[in-house]
């Protein structure tokens, strides 16, 4: 019988399987233990693995990140929860100046298999400007980190296991707007390596790249445009670092048209980075100007009507696709 799991349950399952199969794995963070996490993504782990493997911390994100670093240097595999990704700001130094650079600065004396899980994005939920950001974009200019942005329950499971197995620091962004989406799990879970994109829909007319909650509007736009005979290819990079440029380039070779859709403003974003890489490396592939459908260049407003305008909508994606295919 196929099992159906939510994105959140898939995440819990990945941690549970890792805790069960590797004694050096532990899970910790604020209220992840007895309470099962603010997002309930660690539910049941405390009961199953006990207080030695699943630990509640004080509200001290700097201490959390540092503990993860030290433990990893000593060969453990810490999985820390930072709750809302926006709180990465209070431990930014630990992530950017210590975690990302330790291996390099010490000439490779050790590896740092740290996984930092955080509930990211989720604009649209009315959580306001300090609890809804697409925080993955803060870390792009920092060498030494891997950035994972799963969109489906299966990917959430596979990528979280890959992240925990990975010898390098991984920031694992769980999209808050996806926690409750459901999917059937395959009987045998596939192995997904960090740095491999997923083609979410095949098409020959335009390549659309999006992650997490932005995939749905893209797929909806693709369905809508199919009626008009526009075949949209939708690609989910799944990890921003490493980035699977090859899959995107292969698609672009067929479509010669590019749209990127992202739940973040343009400046300093992964979308801008991708467009810049592609035009530098594959200029001749572009038949028309690429378009990024980005969130607006403001903090995220609270009121529903405003927040909805902030986020890229299906209508905006359709418009962008029409523009690039008709240019």
């Amino acid at each position, binding site marked *: 019988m196929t099992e159906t799991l939510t994105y959140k349950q898939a995440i819990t399952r990945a941690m549970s399987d890792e805790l069960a199969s590797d004694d050096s794995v532990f899970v910790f963070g604020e209220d992840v233990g007895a*309470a099962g996490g603010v997002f309930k993504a660690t539910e049941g782990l405390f009961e199953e693995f006990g207080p030695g493997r699943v630990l509640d911390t*004080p*509200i001290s994100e700097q201490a959390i990140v540092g503990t993860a670093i030290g433990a990893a240097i000593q060969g453990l595999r810490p999985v820390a929860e930072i709750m809302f990704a926006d709180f990465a700001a209070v431990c930014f130094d630990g992530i950017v100046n210590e975690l990302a650079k330790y291996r390099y600065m010490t000439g490779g004396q050790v590896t740092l298999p740290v996984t930092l899980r955080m509930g990211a994005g989720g604009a649209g939920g009315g*959580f*306001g400007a*300090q609890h809804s950001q697409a925080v993955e974009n803060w870390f792009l200019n920092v060498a030494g980190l891997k950035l994972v942005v799963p969109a489906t329950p299966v990917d959430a499971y596979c990528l979280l296991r890959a992240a925990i197995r990975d010898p390098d620091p991984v920031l694992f962004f769980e999209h808050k707007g996806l926690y409750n989406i459901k999917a059937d799990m395959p009987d045998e879970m596939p192995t997904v390596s960090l740095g491999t994109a997923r083609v979410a829909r095949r098409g020959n007319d335009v390549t659309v790249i999006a992650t997490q909650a932005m995939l749905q509007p893209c797929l909806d736009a693709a369905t809508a445009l199919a009626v008009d005979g526009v075949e949209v290819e939708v690609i989910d990079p799944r990890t921003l670092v490493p980035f699977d440029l090859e899959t995107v380039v292969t698609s672009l070779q067929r479509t010669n048209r590019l749209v990127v859709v992202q739940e973040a403003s343009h400046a300093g974003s992964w979308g801008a980075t991708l467009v810049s890489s592609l035009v530098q490396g594959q200029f001749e592939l572009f038949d028309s100007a690429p378009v990024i459908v980005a969130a607006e260049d403001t903090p995220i*407003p609270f*009121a529903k009507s405003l927040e909805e305008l902030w986020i890229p909508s299906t209508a905006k994606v359709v418009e962008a696709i029409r523009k690039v295919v008709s240019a």
Partner: protein
Amino acid sequence: MGRTKDASTALTLDQQVDGLRTMLEIRGFEDECHRLFAAGLVRGSTHLGQGQEAVSVGTALALRDGDTMTCTYRGHAATLAMGAPLDRSFGEILGKAEGLCGGKGGSMHLTHVESGAMGSFAIVGGHLPIACGFAFASRFRGTGEVSVCFFGDGATNIGAFHESMNLASVWKLPVVFICENNLYGEYSPLRSTTPLDHLVERASSYAMPGVQVDGNDLMKMHAAASEAVSCARSGEGPTFIEALTYRHKGHSRSDPAKYRPEGELEVWLEKDPIEQCVQTLLEAGVKSERIEQVRADAATSVAGALERAMNWPEPLPASRLEHVYA
């Protein structure tokens, strides 16, 4: 709410009745928020503080115009106690154009600069350094204004707390740090995250006076706050107040608060700050009719405020692009 002229004086009966009315309005406001949330009319999260009203109201009664207050996401009480209008506070939580922040902040960011309610902050510890800034401005200009800063027990474990306490002390800033110890940080009991029973002990690490007070007793809270405020005002520097209190509801809308030991809530419901205050007033000779009138007035003003707020329009779409820069 009327503020005292001379903060160090004990509250008159009228002032106490005033304080009661404010507490009742806050309670009514938060009860309504709870209902609105359940009805799906408020989005995101909301953090209610029923049971903690005396901390905010007692403190606000010790302030004067020009003083400033900063608080957390659990900041409805403090914001209203400073004098933010009920209707515009509802409006903000409902995401209306007339909301305190034009609908751009939401429940976790109620701010009404005009009344000195300088903001509700959703990052734990984030506002403590800012409270130092308000105090610095006061000292810089010699205005005597005092900066009051509310935060939770759990917040005393975050770095920003430490830096702010230290800076305030070494610079002798006119700031009063008020820790609302409600025994829990989210779902974690204090002792599981903090190796102390009495947070007030942390003050000595900054050579700062520390005071522990029953945060459910309006009068005691006012007295403690008054003393700290007048120290601050007269240039003697900051004080750390640990106010012992309790939240009747869960941490946020999604929390059924199962982590509570049996009977704990009941004990604290017995110590409800509003009912305690009523009791004190009755004992002091205030007529029960007057109290009933205050209850009714508060209920009316809350209901009226909510009705107005519900009828306000959504923010104009263009407003979302304003206020990123000046």
